[in-house]
């Protein structure tokens, strides 16, 4: 490797995690190259539901999600573009005895973690969400909620990254990384080579593969989440609506389309990450039934599109954000539950760590999961 590599840092993977990290590194004056094998934010970070919900975020991640929520509200200031963020009331409802129990437990742990969740009865829930159908026994209400129009993410980050002086290499897949004197050499699918002093692995569900290039075993499970969107409808609801078991995430965008999600799974043919995941029609139908149960007026809508996205999950369902074990200058970021919400914050934290700044909150040591 040449004495002075072309870049101070190479970020591999241009989702919300990689883009945010790259952005703050570039703004701090580093020479940054961001490589993605496709277009920016076209995997999880561009196809996710865009919900900024506290009631579906793991309690331990609430402080991060609250900061992320704040950042999404102000993208015009720090990202240079409005990404359609809306602040809405959040409601998580319980229909059965078991769900009431879950709701009470989940609400109290989230409240303890700093999310302003309040339990309300059915009548109050109906005031907050007039679109609700019958059967609600109890609801969790949280005014810190809302959504982002996720498919605009890449557009916003792209402009900001270029303005910050980062080098963008889209359509350029990294195929391997070798530690070399003074840094790392990245091999790319087009036969090229990129050298950088530091490397950040931000490949979403593919960080497992990326870590393996450097000899680190980092087991990451790949969830295949299904989402369903309807055609435009007159207003049928006004909240971000979920069910206590986490199996519904429902909202209506400004344009009238309604997005139905909740982590109902598609399946992979083999490992979905290698290409080839498919919808499970029964799960599409089940998810829609739950949505119609919650907001009966949805029955009159038409479904336009069902799609899949890949979400990373570790064995303890907690993030991996920090140094790759055994390396001073290789970092990894990903597998964050509700990671879109907290992405702008966690990516910035990692940039702070790389820049050796004091951290506002701790990272999530990959070492606890990694092997060799």
């Amino acid at each position, binding site marked *: 490797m040449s004495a002075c590599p072309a870049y101070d840092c190479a970020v591999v993977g241009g989702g919300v995690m990689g883009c945010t990290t790259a952005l703050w590194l570039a703004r701090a004056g580093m020479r940054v190259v961001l490589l993605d094998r496709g277009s920016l934010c*076209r995997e999880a970070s561009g196809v996710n539901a865009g919900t900024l919900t506290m009631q579906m975020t793991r309690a331990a991640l609430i402080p991060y999600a609250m900061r992320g929520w704040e950042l999404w509200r102000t993208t015009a200031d720090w990202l240079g573009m409005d990404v359609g963020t809306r602040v809405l009331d959040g409601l998580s409802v319980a229909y059965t005895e078991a769900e009431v129990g879950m709701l009470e437990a989940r609400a109290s742990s989230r409240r303890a973690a700093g999310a302003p969740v309040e339990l309300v009865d059915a009548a109050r829930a109906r005031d907050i969400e007039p679109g609700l159908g019958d059967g609600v026994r109890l609801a969790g209400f949280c005014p810190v909620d809302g959504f982002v129009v996720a498919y605009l993410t890449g557009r916003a980050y792209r402009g900001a990254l270029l303005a910050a002086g980062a080098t963008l290499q889209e359509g350029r897949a990294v195929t391997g990384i070798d530690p070399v004197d003074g840094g790392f050499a990245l091999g790319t699918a087009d036969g090229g080579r990129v050298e950088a002093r530091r490397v950040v692995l931000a490949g979403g569900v593919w960080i497992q593969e990326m870590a393996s290039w450097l000899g680190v075993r980092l087991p990451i499970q790949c969830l295949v989440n299904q989402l369903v969107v309807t055609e435009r409808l007159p207003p049928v609801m006004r909240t971000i609506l979920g069910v206590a078991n986490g199996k519904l995430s429902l909202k209506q965008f400004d*344009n009238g389309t309604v997005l139905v999600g909740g982590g109902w799974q598609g399946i992979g043919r083999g490992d979905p990450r290698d290409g080839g995941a498919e919808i499970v029609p029964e799960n*599409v139908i089940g998810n829609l039934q739950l949505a119609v149960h919650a907001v009966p007026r949805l029955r009159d809508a*038409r479904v336009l599109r069902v799609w899949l996205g890949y979400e990373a999950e570790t064995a303890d369902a907690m993030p991996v954000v920090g140094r790759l074990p055994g390396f001073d200058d290789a970092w990894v970021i990903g597998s964050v539950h509700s990671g879109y919400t907290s992405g702008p914050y966690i990516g910035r934290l990692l940039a702070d760590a790389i820049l050796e700044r004091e951290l506002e909150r701790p990272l999530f040591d990959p070492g606890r999961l990694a092997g060799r």
Partner: protein
Amino acid sequence: MPDAIDLLVLGAGPAGAAAALAAAEHGARTVMVDEALAPGGQVYRAPPMDHRQLGQRALEPEHRDGEALRRRLQCSGVEVATRHRVWSLLPGFRVHAIGPAGHRAWVARAVVLATGTTERVVPFPGWTTPGVIGLAAATILLKSQGAVPGERVVVAGCGPLLAAVGAGLVKAGRAPVAVVDLAGRGEWLRALPAMAARPDLVRRGLGWLAALRRAGVPLLSGHGVVAVEGDTRVTAVRIAPVASDGTPRAERVARRLEADALVIGHGLVPATEATRLLEADHRFVADAGGWIPVLDDDCATSVAGLFAAGDGSGLAGAAAARLQGEIAGLAAARHLGQLDEGRYQHTVAPLRQGLARARRFGQAMARLTAPRPAMVGTIAADTVVCRCEDVTRAEIETAIASGAREMNQLKAWTRCGMGPCQGRMCAETAASLLARHVGGREAAGQWTARAPLRPLPLADMVGEFGYDDIPMPEPAPP
């Protein structure tokens, strides 16, 4: 529970029907699915019920052929599932549809896709005004409802459907104001040698032209529509002479035709949602209508057990569709082990010869309607390209300038193609606009196909259910 079958045929047009009949004849347990009320597809679309009940003879030869086809299907072993929309197609061939009685699902060992085409309209100012309808759509109106789109109709665009619709209007007692053809005389002349392959169809075409002439309908070749006037309804159509690339010739003045309807079409585009959903290989062939699945001589796609036939696999017209469908059906029977190699080769040989002949004619017709990429260059900045989402050319150009380099990013950044037509109306225009910046249609790529293949009413999807019926997965982590 899904029904286990040998072969599922999607699309009951000439291609699908021929495939289903051929496979069933060799013992394949075959189901043919179509969303229309009756089998026949676009060309053999069934006339309205009351016409038939009135005992009216179907006058057009297509009606006769269509009735014959429907009778043959009735006496065949093919199970025909009309009024069923296939919304999901998965590998291993699990097929999900919704019909009048709710969900249906099949597991099929082989699939023939014969999904036909959608229509291309290159936008121009006023193209979304009520009273503007597609040329192919007008044939449906005429055929299935015996209806006309207006009192004073201008028929415009390109290809043989122009004269067919024009003559259809004459017959319906509403001779069009004019028939405006993008193609110049030269283009038709170039098509002549290939047309000789089907003297019967040439005779019909000449018949349509004669009917138009007798009715005194002006036939303006080498002309295109530059704008439609009217706010809530078409009041006039402005036309101008065009160069051979379809762009208006600046030095020539536009003419104004008073009209209350415009029927316009710039060709057909193979409907490849289903082959894309199953991730078959595709290639871009402008003369065949655009992106088409890669097929071998046996109509097999790159996915084992998946076959494609008809205009959905490349434009070649109804006669070719029927022959190709038959080959696909036989190839599927061979794949299923119901037809041995020797008999297969023996049976398909004459079909292949016929197909080559039919294709010469069909492809010559298709070439008359091949995309003229320069036309999209003349779309005005404020003209809407995606009518469902109201996305203008200027918005598309801005997104491209901000770094959208392929179709899916372009869609995400503009919403172009996200509306109820699921991108069927605007994909061609958007891709052609993007192609100008990224070096061609291949580089621009295609929108990822997703279920449902058609918009689906939620009421049909969910049916009647109670909370306990919902197949609830494990709760999310606390």
